């Protein structure tokens, strides 16, 4: 099944989906050393996003979050791709500087954790296997 959205940052990546209905703040909400979500009370608290296709509605929190994403990429703890319902500036800039393929305007309710996804940031398409 193909979901058509909007390209945010180029590149093609595939991996297992990890889906949340909560917004994500990379600054303070994710530990860039371990790749785990550390925000207290977050749906993904304690879970690793490393190497996954991270699917969430939109970003939140400080603009420093873009730098945290960059740090995760350098630490090899970053997600392989990001899928959003509606992109915000922090996540968009984070994907660009960290070179993480990203697509938004996707109905993320159609995606379940554990599904295998191919994110095509060149075309703005998310393919579910």
């Amino acid at each position, binding site marked *: 099944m193909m979901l058509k959205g909007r390209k945010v940052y180029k590149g093609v990546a595939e991996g297992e989906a990890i889906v949340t209905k909560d917004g994500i703040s990379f600054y303070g909400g994710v530990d860039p050393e371990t790749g785990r979500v550390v925000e207290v009370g977050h749906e993904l608290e304690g879970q690793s996003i490393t190497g996954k296709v991270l699917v969430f509605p939109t970003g939140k929190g400080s603009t420093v979050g873009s*730098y945290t994403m960059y740090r995760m990429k350098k630490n090899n703890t970053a997600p392989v791709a990001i899928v959003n319902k509606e992109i915000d500036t922090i996540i968009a800039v984070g994907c660009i500087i960290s070179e993480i393929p990203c697509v938004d305007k996707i109905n993320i309710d159609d995606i379940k954790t554990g599904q295998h996804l191919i994110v095509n940031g060149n075309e703005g398409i998310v393919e579910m296997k």
Partner: protein
Amino acid sequence: MRLNQEEKDMLEGKFGKATQKSMEILTTLGEIFEAENMIEVHGVQIAGVSYANLGEAGLEFLNEMAEDGKVKVLTTLNPAGMDRENWQVLGIDEEFAINQNRAIDAFAKMGIITTCSCTPYLIGNTPHYGQHIAWAESSAVCYSNSVIGARTNREGGPSALAAALTGRTPNYGYHLEKNRHGQVLVSVNAPVKGTDEFGVLGKIIGDKLVELGKKIPYITGIPSATVEELKSFCASIATYGGTALFHMDGITPEYNKYPKPSDVRFEINQYEIESARAELIDDGIEIDFVSIGCPHASIHEIANIAKLLEGKKVKKEFWITTARPTKKIADEAGYTKIIEDAGAKFAADTCCVVAPIKGRFKGIMVDSAKACYYGRAKNKFKVRIGSIEQCIEEATR
């Protein structure tokens, strides 16, 4: 999004890697916010300077950009985490100081003027009416849009840097006249005076805008306001309301350019001002730190502080945070000597919001509603707002 030949060349990497990465950031943001084209900017203000916020990740990014990136337009920096000359006296540890200087060196390598201040408009990065700029620092964004009538969106650290390295920003948001109309009519029916009270007013309006889901207030009932009062107001309304632009009847340059909003309105009376002020005074506060200069103190404020402190001694830690060029004027005018003889300290290049001072103090007294917000949220201090005169009375008591 339409790009001209030079912009396309930037995006294709003909001007180097940093310029290419910058253009990628700007075109992506432009696509997201549906900009039709790029516009040239006349100046940039960059935030994300304190090492406490950047961390190694941010620093690594800056170093990568500094490999071949050079700014195209006048670019200045936000406050850093410390006074670059006087950090030891202010109790900043050496490891932090080394890292902070690494970050500032990366900015300097790109041709950025490393005066670290949240009031670029007071020290030479001063746009004129109608000019397009790309500024980060929410208080300065609000001041430049509203008080000067220049045009900028609320940029983050990386997008402001990208604008500096390309001289461009995507044409959307507050760059377009259609997005600059007042949306809410605010009638102020009480006298408002002093930096503290203008900060209180900013909090009331900011909170109310969030509640209403509106962005641009049109404010009536303020007969006059000084630069310092407007500076404090901008910092506060941007902090509490996320506001980037307001119009003030008879005071800001665009107040009669657009129709007055009429469908949404609210009033502010003496009662609202008193209760908002009370919200900025914590119960049981024990004040051990007094700080003036959020946003950075002007030379006029410093002259006033010198007058009030002359011949007195402060009995608590007392910082005056300001831009280094302003501090130099104070040095030459003799104000610095009067203030330091009284035992107060200058903290240039930094401020009580970005300096790593969490845990060092219990209660802070300030004349700034913005400083109250960050004093509580970031540094876990108890806070008390008061006028500059009350701050000095508290410090010398």
